[in-house]
């Protein structure tokens, strides 16, 4: 497995962003297992987490191959330093409560759907195949999380306030989804995948009607910016990694 790195500029980085999004949100959602508000929803959250971990495995494996240095999914998942993770900051934020969890799943899935849709036409055949498989999963996540956003937003006064608070907290982090950067430009020029800033209209078209139906107020954009996809994370990331990486760091080289 010592292929030469023939990947176009930014290609690996772009795939890492996709893989790390799935990895880190999957890790967060897996924290819910056994602790959800009802048994049925415990099952549903675990299914979403399993889908995301599955996506992460495919995408990180692919990134490792593109890189051609022999790193497999686990070396990439567990043995990078914090600054080398390329996930959106939104994915690494703590779950907090069920409200924030479903609002995040909703905002994130609404981004994943148009992204994977475009990626099914990628010039990178492997990436296109992963996207086709993952698109079905993301659509279901969007639908399920959207149903919950509506129920919480248009439920009791308490649930409405909690859903609105979750939305207000998370919304600023969605600006990062669409922050333009040279990697996106290069990758999109090579036909590998869309520049994420071109997905904003699709994302809004998916998000806003549901928020309206949920009787939630769509927050205004502020100057707030986050930079997880460029490798500058929140304070929460280090703790997440400390937990996730502990076995691989403590027992270097061991096979599991």
């Amino acid at each position, binding site marked *: 497995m010592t292929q030469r790195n023939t990947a176009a500029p930014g290609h690996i980085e772009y795939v890492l962003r996709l893989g790390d999004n799935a990895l880190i949100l999957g890790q967060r959602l897996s924290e819910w*297992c*056994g602790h959800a*508000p*009802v048994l049925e929803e415990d099952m549903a959250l675990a299914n979403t987490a*399993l889908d995301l971990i599955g996506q992460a*495995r495919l995408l990180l494996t692919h990134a490792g191959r593109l890189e051609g240095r022999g790193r497999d999914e686990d070396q990439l998942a567990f043995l990078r330093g914090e600054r080398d993770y390329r996930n959106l900051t939104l994915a690494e934020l703590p779950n907090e409560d069920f409200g924030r969890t479903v609002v995040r799943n909703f905002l994130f899935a609404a981004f994943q759907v148009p992204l994977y849709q475009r990626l099914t036409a990628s010039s990178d055949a492997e990436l296109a195949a992963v996207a086709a498989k993952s698109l079905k999963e993301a659509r279901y996540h969007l639908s399920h999380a959207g149903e919950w956003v509506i129920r*919480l937003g248009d439920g009791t006064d308490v649930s409405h306030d909690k859903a609105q608070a979750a939305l207000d907290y998370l919304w600023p982090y969605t600006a990062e989804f669409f922050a333009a950067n040279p990697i996106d430009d290069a990758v999109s020029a090579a036909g590998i995948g869309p520049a994420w800033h071109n997905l904003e209209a699709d994302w809004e078209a998916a998000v806003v009607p549901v928020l309206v139906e949920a009787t939630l107020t769509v927050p205004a954009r502020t100057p707030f910016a986050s930079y997880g996809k460029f490798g500058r994370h929140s304070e929460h990331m280090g703790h997440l990694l400390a937990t996730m990486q502990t076995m691989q760091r403590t*027992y270097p080289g061991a096979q*599991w």
Partner: protein
Amino acid sequence: MYTQSLSIPDGEARGPKKVENPAYQAEFDAKIAAGGFIEAKDWMPEAYRKTLIRQISQHAHSEIVGMLPEGNWITRAPSLKRKAILLAKVQDEGGHGLYLYAAAETLGVSRDELYEALLSGKAKYSSIFNYPTLNWADIGVIGWLVDGAAIMNQIPLCKCSYGPYSRAMVRICKEESFHQRQGYDLLLAMMRGTPEQRDMVQDAVNRWWWPSIMMFGPHDKDSVHTETTRWGIKRISNDDLRQKFVDATVKQAEVLGVSLPDPDLKWNAERGHYDFGAIDWDEFWNVVQGHGQCNVDRLAARVKAWEDGAWVREAALEHARKRAVREKDAA
């Protein structure tokens, strides 16, 4: 995963048919004697119904409390493959709890009532989950020994006389067949690894062996199950199942390359079975009675999840109510 064969009194459960009727009773007895199934709406003796509610709900509680010790390792699983496997497995346990609560509900009790009994500490669940998971090998050993013991207990329940319980058990046993294998597979990988990994496996086996043996419940001479046996709820005795488990496990331990922590464990050619040492029943009853290392924490975690989720459950109901009103107004 599984419930202990314990007879602990429960409170009054509400239910459909309390009428005692000799003709119905005779019909019921004949059905049982012929090995037939009793279905939800059939007449059944009140004691049969209560026994089932107790046993099925204890079993359900065991599944959802059982999510906690293994759940303790999901975020720390050492590879993505193992993380996915463990998450799927713990999720399955939630599913099994769900199937079982639904089976109990056919007997005229609601899931919330059963939950209430668990969360208030009135209801019991399998004591095995009151032991802590201390290293990654615990996840493998739980699959191998704890699920192994559970499967041995559960297979006879697939033929239990109460239809909904029996069908839930068929589904559970089918899903659970991967649980034991993934555990053994995990341990095999560790035994092929470094000395440190092998030490972890042995350490986990040392801690889980006796609690696993205890999962089969008290010795036959100390436990009263005449009714459950007559009713076709329990089909094989505690000691017979335990012996079957020990006999099957010794070989598996050899292949794995671990020792089982019992100096008295040896083949008895005369009996055609392995003999094993005396079980520490004081420890067993201590844990059953709430003094295990994790009893308090396990219950607290269940209570917290339930209380933290209250506003979510209420919101969904309120939304459904509002929507129904709107649809009515629109019509």
